[in-house]
């Protein structure tokens, strides 16, 4: 074991103020599994060293994977997926997954793969009621981005992240570092930042494609989920009143809003509402109140997050003497969407359905 990189790693990760917490987790109660011999070899030649993994290796023998019954699948069409520029090989289905961000957790829950999750991190809000029983037992690794050590302490073989930036050296670890340890990594494709990978305009087929990819990697059947998604989508009543909306994500003196090519735009298109910032070629973007007032949106979509609640947003709108005069603010024409449902994922169709229903209830005098 090399002393210098180790102390450096511990030194960086040890500061509590980096906001990472390890909850008293069930993973310490689980049998710590020894990775298979080929992975031991890979680990031994890697640069990064983690004490817990070393301890785990020395203590136990191989254990069988726990988790759901893998469905026998036909030979995969491709042997690897190009995910945001990193190749994700399709080999045996992952058995121990760490999910970062709600979209990842919920994707797996939707595909019935909840039992494969050995740790979640950076969750954006509670899961929908239909999964709360499954989700209750999921170990929480961190409130925010977990450190690499924390991720590795759960001994995953797959890390599924909602943002590309989760995979940084001071975050969960770079994707190449994890690969060197034999851990595959995957980023929600709609969140890719590079121009070649970012959807030029997010559509439901992009979300379907992600469902396909995940199902392929995990070797499960996605037809039920896809059918449900399409059915929900078909049932969304598009509004015909020619309304406009501001997608207010966060901020006070400078509003941060849903722009033209991401999930907010997709949802607004689906419910038949024009995005006042729809011409901005970004997923979300900083904006300015003057433009909001000039556009005078008919409704305002408030993203409800724990760090920026809908009440706080309403207060911001009402305290600003200029925005207080907006029709939407004076008449409380707000539509509320929980943050976890506002990023591209399996809940996007649900968010569209919910917002359409809220919109139906709004009357315009």
């Amino acid at each position, binding site marked *: 074991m090399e002393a210098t990189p180790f102390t450096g790693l511990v030194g960086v990760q040890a500061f509590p103020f980096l906001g990472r917490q390890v909850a008293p987790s069930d993973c310490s109660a689980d049998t710590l599994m020894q990775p298979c011999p080929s992975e031991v070899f890979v680990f031994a030649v890697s640069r990064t060293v983690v004490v817990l993994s070393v301890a785990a290796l020395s203590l136990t023998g191989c254990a069988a994977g726990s988790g759901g019954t893998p469905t026998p699948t036909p030979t995969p069409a491709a042997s690897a997926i190009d995910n945001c520029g990193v190749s994700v090989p399709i080999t045996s289905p992952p058995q121990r997954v760490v999910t970062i961000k709600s979209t990842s957790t919920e994707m797996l829950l939707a595909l019935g793969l909840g039992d494969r999750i050995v740790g979640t991190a950076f969750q954006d809000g509670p899961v929908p009621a239909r999964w709360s029983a499954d989700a209750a037992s999921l170990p929480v690794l961190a409130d925010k981005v977990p450190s690499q050590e924390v991720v590795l302490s759960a001994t995953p073989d797959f890390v599924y992240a909602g943002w590309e930036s989760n995979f940084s050296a001071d975050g969960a670890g770079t994707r190449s570092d994890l690969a060197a340890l034999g851990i595959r990594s995957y980023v929600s494709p709609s969140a890719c930042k590079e121009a070649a990978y970012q959807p030029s305009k997010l559509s439901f087929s992009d979300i379907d494609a992600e469902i396909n990819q995940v199902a392929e990697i995990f070797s499960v059947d996605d037809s039920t989920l896809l059918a449900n998604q399409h059915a929900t989508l078909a049932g969304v009543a598009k509004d015909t009143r020619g309304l406009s909306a501001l997608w207010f994500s*966060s901020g006070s003196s400078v509003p941060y809003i849903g722009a033209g090519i991401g999930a907010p735009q997709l949802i607004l298109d689906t419910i038949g509402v024009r995005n006042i910032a729809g011409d901005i070629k970004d997923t979300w973007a900083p904006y300015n109140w003057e433009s909001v*007032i000039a556009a005078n949106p008919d409704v305002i979509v408030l993203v409800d997050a724990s760090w920026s609640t809908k009440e706080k947003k309403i207060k911001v709108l009402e305290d600003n003497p200029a925005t207080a005069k907006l029709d939407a603010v004076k008449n409380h024409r707000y539509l509320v969407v929980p943050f976890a449902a506002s990023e591209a994922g399996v809940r996007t169709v649900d968010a569209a359905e919910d917002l359409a229903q809220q919109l139906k209830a709004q009357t315009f005098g």
Partner: protein
Amino acid sequence: MLWFIVLSVVLITSVTVAVTIGPATITAPDVWGSIVHHLGLGANPLSPLRDSIVWELRLPRVLTAGAVGAGLAISGVVMQAITRNPLADPYLLGLSSGASLGAVAVLLLGSALLLPVAAFLGAALALALTLLLAGMFGRITPSRTVLAGIAVSALAAAITSLIIFWTVTGDSYREILGWLLGSLAGARWPEAGIACSAILVAGIPIMFSGRTLDAFAFGDTSAATLGVNVQRTRWIMLTVTALLTGAMVSVSGSIGFVGLVLPHAVRLIVGPRHRLLLPLSALVGASFLIWADTAARTFFDPRELPVGIVTAIIGAPVFAVLLARRVRS
């Protein structure tokens, strides 16, 4: 005297033009018509909503920019005179770091105080700490004060970074970054009121201390023999400058380079005598920041840059040029 008139005209022109510029399309006559209406003369040519763009957003922001620019410029002049250090700026005594800490406490920890109040308290606390530290080892001298200020700034910055890392999530980074870089995006009438009051209360008296500041040119002993009460003057000047800077920073964050570079630029044009330098720096500072902020809010329309970025982009090369000229002369 001529300069005074020219620069005053420039300032007034800047205000009237800057108010007509913005992402929303409102014609200049309509803008002025709206303002005139609010001053009690004439009907309002704009709908209430568009009128609020002019009267609630643009005008207070432009006025705040002017007041902050003037305040930072004259604070810079005073600091450079009192510390006899051409690299001094208004933030030297821990003021901006302390204010940032106060702002972060409100923005990220959800303290119940109003942002300007918290920022001002932070600045005041940092100043008190700086003076305490400077006085701990004997007489308070300018160099000791500067060093103490650096230490306190570093401490406040470290605590601020700590809080940011501990609490920040997603896009609340944006909010605090905007504040740290200096931004006028949140400037409404209360902020304009604070900034303009600060200029009147603190700035005007400073304006009249020109000859006294001149006396410091050759140091404390010189100033004393020229009849200046060195200790008392220094204390008063520092306190008033701190109040002025604290008020400005509480309203707009730490906008950099205005206090550092503008005094030098104005000195190049009108010379180092403070009786001229102070009021002219105020005028130039006001116009400069009005235009910098106009650029910041329109260059990347509809996105906004924090104005501190614009002042840094302009200020850094200008400072380099000024430095080169000093070396050559």
